[in-house]
């Protein structure tokens, strides 16, 4: 392709936040302010408003492209549950990713198998060391420990275009994660999961899922900043964390007023489900 490109490592031509009235611009401005503070003073949180989720999975596709993820690995999934009996039915879309728990059971479980495999960053992101967290044993230990189900993925080294006439260039590219660039081969055999697109945050961009969402179902920012949008949303008191009784203290919050309405929908007689709540989706497929 005969395009003149900035060479790797050249000074990034990134400017200041443009003026704008929308929520996205507001969150980008919040992000720039947060990046001006030391990372230990930041508190990244994601607030997912499932009422605004249209179940399109654009976040999923954006995540795969941004992080160059192999088959079977999507840091973000949108779970979908159909409830009730015809014609009184409901359909719930539940965007899900690693909750970046402050007291993450997966970190403990993984490090018990391989010391230093996972760690919690000062800004709240739960990080994987691809060099250490290798093999299925540690992956399975961490996965079992996660109460939210399937937040972690095992990279078996495959590619989407394996078995086609040619492995495509976008799959062969290196991708930035955890502060450095990785070839496609390097994380193969490692455990992988969402890191709030840390490489994008470092560059001043919102996580890929947040910005691509047609329904604007996700809000992201620094909950330690008094003026940020996420601080406002959390202060309004509608957002809640899933299964708080577990004491995991996740950094992903949900706004979801469907729950009570769904509870009014009779559960299918064929199931023994006592009631429907967020964990209905979150244990789905476990």
């Amino acid at each position: 392709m005969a395009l003149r490109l900035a060479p790797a490592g050249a000074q990034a031509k990134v400017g200041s936040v443009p003026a704008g009235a929308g929520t996205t611009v507001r969150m980008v401005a919040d992000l720039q302010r947060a990046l001006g503070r030391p990372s230990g003073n930041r508190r990244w949180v994601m607030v997912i408003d499932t009422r605004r989720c249209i179940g399109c999975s654009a976040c999923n596709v954006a995540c795969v492209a941004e992080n160059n993820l192999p088959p079977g690995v999507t840091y973000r999934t949108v779970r979908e549950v159909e409830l009730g009996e015809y014609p009184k039915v409901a359909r719930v879309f539940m965007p899900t990713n690693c909750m970046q728990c402050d007291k993450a059971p997966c970190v403990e479980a993984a490090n018990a198998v391989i010391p230093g495999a996972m760690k919690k960053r000062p800004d709240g992101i739960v990080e994987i060391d691809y060099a250490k967290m290798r093999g299925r044993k540690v992956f399975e230990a961490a996965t079992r420990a996660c109460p939210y189900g399937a937040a972690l993925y095992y990279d078996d080294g495959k590619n989407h275009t394996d078995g086609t006439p040619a492995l495509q260039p976008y799959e062969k590219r290196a991708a930035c994660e955890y502060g450095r660039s990785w070839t496609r081969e390097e994380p193969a055999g490692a455990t992988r999961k969402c890191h709030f697109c840390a490489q994008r945050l470092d560059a001043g961009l919102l996580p890929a899922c947040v910005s691509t969402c047609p329904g604007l179902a996700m809000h992201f920012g620094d909950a330690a900043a008094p003026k940020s949008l996420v601080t406002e949303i959390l202060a309004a008191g509608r957002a809640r964390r899933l299964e708080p009784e577990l004491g995991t203290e996740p950094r992903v919050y949900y706004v979801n007023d469907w729950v009570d309405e769904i509870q009014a929908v009779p559960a299918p007689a064929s199931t023994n489900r006592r009631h429907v709540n967020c964990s209905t989706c979150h244990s789905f497929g476990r």
Partner: protein
Amino acid sequence: MTDTRTETTDITRRQFLGSAALFGGTAAGLVSGRASDLPAECAPNAYQLADSTNMLHTVCLQCNTGCGIRVKLQDGVAVKIEGSPYSPWTLVPPIDYRTPLADAALVEGALCPKGQAGVQTAYDPYRIVKVLKRAGPRGANEWTAIPFEQAVREIVDGGTLFRNVKGKETRRVTGLRELWALKDAKLAAEMSTAVEEIRTQKSAREKQEAVEAFKARFKDHLHLLIDPEHPDLGPKNNQVSFVWDRLKGGRAEFIKRFISESFGSINAHGHTTVCQGSLYFTGEAMSDQFVEGRLTGGKKFYWQADTANVEFLLAIGSSYIEGGYGPTHHARKLMGNLVEDKVKIAVVDPRFSKIAAKAWMWVPAKPGTEAALALGMIRWIIDEQRYDRKFLSAANKAGAKAVGEQSWTNAAWLVKEDGSFLRASEAGVGQKETRTTADGKK
């Protein structure tokens, strides 16, 4: 909000990030276990996807909505696509069009999953990137790849192109060069006018005489025609037919210029999808005006519902946030209003679609019964008098003006069983009206 740098110490952050990278990998040792407030995290492999010089601004054609997009390149390979922040289709509201690219790089518009998957379309391993020539009988799926230059030569010159296909060894294919018969624009115009004269003749005998007159007049040029006995079929040029798919981004103009104006064939045919056709032609019909006794001349081809301001959305068989001309902008507008209780959605669809999942009411009407439902709704509206009497009274432009409405409607006109409108005179009210056409005819 225009410049956050004044509010933080960030004024040097970007410069530091850049310069650290520029001076070569000072942070290369900080692979994991770094403190993320160190600025050169991704150096020396700088994250290229935030740099505006690695972004192409273009239009998504994964569907026909045509969202503004930004394609991000890494080492010349398209790897990630975002909604353009300049586009009202993807960012609601968009940023100022005059925003410098470097500033805009920080802000991304929405994009649906199909748009996000554009990279897979661009780099489809099964995409045909060479000219394939049939190497066996039709339908045998046997092909050979030939150089582009050879393809152009064979298409232009024709000849016995299938010598290696059994049974087709001697088949001669006519090339474009031979079909480009009539090249004289003046002559073409004269022939065209003469053909119109043949067409206007009433009887078969008169038509035959006109054909003979045509042949006599153009006796030196009859070899240019497909059939001299049928001048209306036009010149051999018409034997070239160009059939295409979507018309976007200047393709229509290019095709028209190449096939119609340069090559001189009338056979240039596009198509669109049925779903889109229904939108286009409904929109066209809705903008028809009452001219000379009939509704005609609709000019507004492409309508979009005002989802930002709508208070009640009735989606009948329309998957509004899955498709419906731009899930990106419709969802941004609708979902925000939905959460704030500003909009109520009802969905008529046998399928419990995604928009149905967001609806206040789902009506799972059986396919084909929607018209009955609509008639029932009309009946209820009439019975309950839940209509806008003032607007309905504006039966024409003058009526609208009289009651202070912006527009008018024929909804209250009575229709006879044959489908035509009932006239006042036919109902015994007033005289039979006479109309004057634009030509002044009564």
